[in-house]
């Protein structure tokens, strides 16, 4: 009676497992080089990398600034200023909304442990 799994078969299985592990790791490492997405009315208005020198754009009266590899709403003409109070965004999934001006700033993607949604 031969062995059920020969050493050749074992190599094939090991290779398959390694491929699986490689895919898994590739997914984990894909968090390099985040992209900031600015939307107006739900449509993409502008995308730019999170990492880079000082940069500022204004979308529908909302001033969005990149500084020290963080992005934040520097100013807005809205009354509630919730967008400004959202603070600095630096991680995947971080977002700031200016509902009155229908502008959103979001760091694309989702961190490994960050929630899919927020309730408030």
């Amino acid at each position, binding site marked *: 009676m031969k062995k059920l799994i020969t050493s050749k078969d074992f190599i094939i299985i090991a290779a398959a497992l390694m491929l699986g592990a490689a895919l898994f790791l590739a997914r984990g490492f894909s968090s390099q080089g985040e992209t900031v997405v600015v939307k107006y009315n739900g449509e993409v208005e502008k995308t730019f990398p999170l990492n880079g020198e000082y940069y500022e754009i204004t979308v529908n009266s909302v001033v969005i600034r990149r500084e020290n590899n963080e992005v934040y709403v520097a100013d807005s003409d809205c009354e509630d200023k919730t967008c400004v109070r959202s603070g600095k965004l630096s991680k995947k999934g971080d977002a700031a909304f200016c509902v009155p001006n229908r502008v959103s700033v979001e760091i694309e993607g989702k961190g490994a442990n960050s929630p*899919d*949604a927020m309730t408030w």
Partner: protein
Amino acid sequence: MKNRKKIIAAVLAAVIVIAAVIWCVPPKTHSAEGYAMGSAVSVTVYGGKNSDEAAAAAVEKIKELDSVYLSHTEEGSFTYRLNAGREVEADSEYLKIIKDCLLLSEDCAGFSILCGALENLWNIEGGGYVPSDSEIEEALLTVDGSNIEIDKTRVTLKNGAIVTLGALGKGMACQQAVNLLKESGAKNGLCTVGGSVGVFGSPGRGKDFKIGIRNPFGEANEYFATLSLSDCFISTSGNYEKYFEKDSVRYCHIFDAETGSPVQNGLSSVTVIADNGTLSDFLSTAVYILGEGRGIALAEKYNARVIIVRDDKSVLMSEGLEDCFELTDESFTVL
């Protein structure tokens, strides 16, 4: 015999590779966004066919629910015309919305969809005003549920009542969006309207959705805990979103229709998990108004689960939630 074993090994290897790929590669997400009910709206479908269209249609459905039915600021909506004209010829959808809301209101004396006059008086969103007792009493005459009448095709208001559906609208919108997504064949989806959330299926790898609960004492992006859930609706009411402060008293946007004043009962937020969106939104407000004891009892009546954050950062929750609740901010204390 030798060949057969090779085949078995090859099949086994292939199964492992396929399983690994399926496990590792998350399903493609299809998202649509928009604005309605004074909030950001976001719908995501995970995998499936025609999912971009389904997500976009769900966002449109929410916008329509707001502009045609619920909004009290958008001219032309049923609610706007009802408030302006004191009566409105309603379609079956609007009659059902009002009936459902009134039925729910019966469970909480402090909850009313006729709080418009109180909201105008206190002017929370416009900077705030602390009214006199006589002003409050006058406004209180308008909030009673008997000031709205429904017959077969018509809704009528009396005694200066003003309808606002903000306490249930976002949850109702999540419910309708989820219904539409499921009808279109979606198996996995996430819908948010402001801070109200609806989830079904899985975002991938068979996992539950992870929902962050806003830290009532932090910035808009901060959460103090997460919930791992699916096939349910989640809503939160709190005193941190819209409020004003005067003489170091915080007046929030949630009114007790019995006292005519913003609720002040030592609670910072109430999160409710229910199997219906309108219900979760209603209950988050109602439990906030009722406070811990009576609030939790009301939630239990509907098999809903509750997480209450007190002003002292202690956290109280329904039995059985421990398994899906994870505290991420150690400055809070789970009781």
